[in-house]
């Protein structure tokens, strides 16, 4: 959008037009005591070059040229240039919801394709046209399960992203939905199936797991689905690292998949934006939050696209809406769509590269300590327990321009101060892995 400053003569013309003598006349109805009689305490205006310098200085704080082994819900993957070329087009670059299909066919078609690809990847029958992010997606999926089953409790694996669980706590506490957390098996880092089984009651609406889980290991989705379904609970599978779907079997046994699609072409940018998704079995359609883009035929029989099912949303039914997040992430979903279109079947190769790099990193870096949960399959993350604390290790790595793994003690005190979560993607080089291993030796 262009920024059009108004000149003093513009202001005068506008005031004259409405019959006001000064700006103050516009605020005459506000009693004088409530009006601010001084200038705002903000910095003076800046010239274009000053603004650029200002942001350059901020950008320099980014660890440009550093190797990074951080993952934990935010993944660095290569972004094909085509993504920004497409999403920067004026037809797409709008925050406006495409309520009028006659002028928004491109946007609607892109969302329809997004939904189609999400279904193909997740093994679900329907998908919405994106949500806020993976954490709220998981919490919304739990609320959905409560509506579908008429039960009122959630059993949550402790291997679900700790911050996703915090978001769920925020939702659940105000809806009076009891939440039970189930511990993991210390040998595998997977949710403890016996404890999970014991935690599910007749009032459990759903079991929420993440796979690959927060430790990077892949859960036994089929076995967990059996346990949940036997007791009449739904299974929700959260996926934080979407690239894993290139190689990991889709969680088709789940009833609802709540995914974060950031890995598909969305940059890691100062905490956002992200792209949440909820996909599910078709029979739960009416309880799914968000909107769907649907395909139809016009009066001449030509293929066309429309927003369907937006009647779930709060602009139509306020207090009865399925979700109070009324913003979806259309533009970010478009990035995802372009990414998946560019990669196509190449997603498998991309996933294989991630797997190979992470395997090599676990072997090489793990040499100076140990890799926990070795007994389970994993994707591109692993838990490393070094000979010194994560903070000491990371400080040493920073000297070598390497950002190490995420210290885990804050989230899992039982793992101690030496455990950290490491991630390698296709962007991680062998030289970077070797260099990190060398520092940690």
């Amino acid at each position: 959008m262009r920024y059009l400053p108004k000149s003093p003569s513009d202001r005068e013309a506008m005031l004259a037009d409405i019959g006001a003598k000064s700006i103050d006349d516009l605020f005459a109805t506000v009693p004088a005591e409530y009006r601010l009689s001084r200038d705002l305490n903000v910095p003076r205006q800046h010239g274009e070059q000053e603004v650029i310098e200002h942001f350059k200085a901020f950008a320099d704080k980014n660890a440009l040229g550093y190797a990074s082994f951080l993952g934990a819900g935010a993944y660095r993957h290569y972004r094909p240039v085509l993504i920004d070329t497409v999403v920067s087009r004026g037809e797409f670059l709008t925050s406006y919801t495409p309520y009028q299909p006659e002028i928004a066919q491109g946007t609607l078609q892109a969302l329809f394709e997004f939904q189609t690809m999400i279904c193909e990847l997740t093994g679900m029958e329907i998908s919405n046209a994106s949500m806020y992010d993976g954490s709220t997606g998981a919490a919304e999926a739990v609320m959905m399960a409560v509506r579908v089953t008429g039960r009122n409790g959630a059993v949550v694996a402790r291997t679900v992203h700790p911050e996703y669980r915090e978001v769920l706590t925020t939702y659940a506490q105000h809806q009076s939905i009891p939440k039970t957390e189930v511990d993991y098996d210390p040998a595998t880092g997977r949710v403890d199936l016996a404890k999970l089984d014991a935690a599910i009651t007749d009032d459990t609406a759903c079991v929420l797991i993440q796979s690959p889980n927060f430790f990077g290991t892949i859960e036994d989705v089929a076995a967990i689905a059996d346990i949940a379904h036997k007791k009449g609970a739904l299974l929700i599978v959260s996926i934080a690292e979407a690239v894993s779907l290139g190689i990991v079997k889709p969680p088709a046994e789940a009833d609802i998949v709540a995914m974060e699609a950031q890995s598909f072409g969305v940059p890691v940018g100062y905490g956002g934006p992200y792209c949440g998704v909820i996909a599910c079995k078709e029979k739960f359609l009416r309880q799914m939050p968000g909107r769907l883009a649907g395909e139809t035929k016009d009066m001449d029989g030509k293929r066309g696209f429309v927003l369907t099912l937006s009647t779930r949303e709060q602009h139509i039914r306020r207090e009865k809406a399925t979700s109070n997040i009324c913003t979806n992430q259309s533009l970010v979903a478009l990035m995802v769509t372009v990414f998946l279109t560019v990669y196509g079947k190449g997603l498998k190769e991309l996933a294989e590269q991630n797997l190979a790099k992470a395997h090599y990193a676990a072997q090489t870096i793990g040499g100076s300590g140990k890799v926990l949960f070795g007994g389970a399959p994993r994707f591109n993350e692993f838990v490393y327990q070094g000979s010194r604390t994560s903070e000491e290790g990371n400080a040493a790595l920073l000297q070598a321009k390497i950002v190490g793994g995420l210290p885990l003690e804050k989230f899992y005190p039982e793992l101690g101060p030496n455990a950290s979560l490491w991630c390698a993607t296709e962007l991680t080089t062998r030289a970077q892995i070797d260099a990190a291993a060398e520092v940690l030796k």
Partner: protein
Amino acid sequence: MAYPTEYRYTKEHEWIAADGRIGITDYAQSTLGDIVFVELPAVGAELKAGESFGTVESVKAVSDLFSPVNGKVLEVNEALNSAPESVNADANATWMIKAEFDASQLESLLTAEAYEKFISEETGH
């Protein structure tokens, strides 16, 4: 539009038959447009006159269904799950729930004639 004289009506545009069938009026279905979903209560649910017992969803709106009487849900029309459009096709014949209720309550509801007069005042034609 047709409003059978053997039914009684509410100002919220529901009809009720003496045998307990409850549906929405022809006027309601034509105002809502294409109906895509009808959300119904469970058998045995309590009904309170003037309170919502379900929703009816058209392409662009969701509206509450209001119970004409106090009572209990005896039966729900499961066929509406797969064919909600039958409400558009014949609103008078397409019941949504069957209620168990005290028949004396019918007295206070609108007759077909009174209902027709009510909507002509509402809509101005």
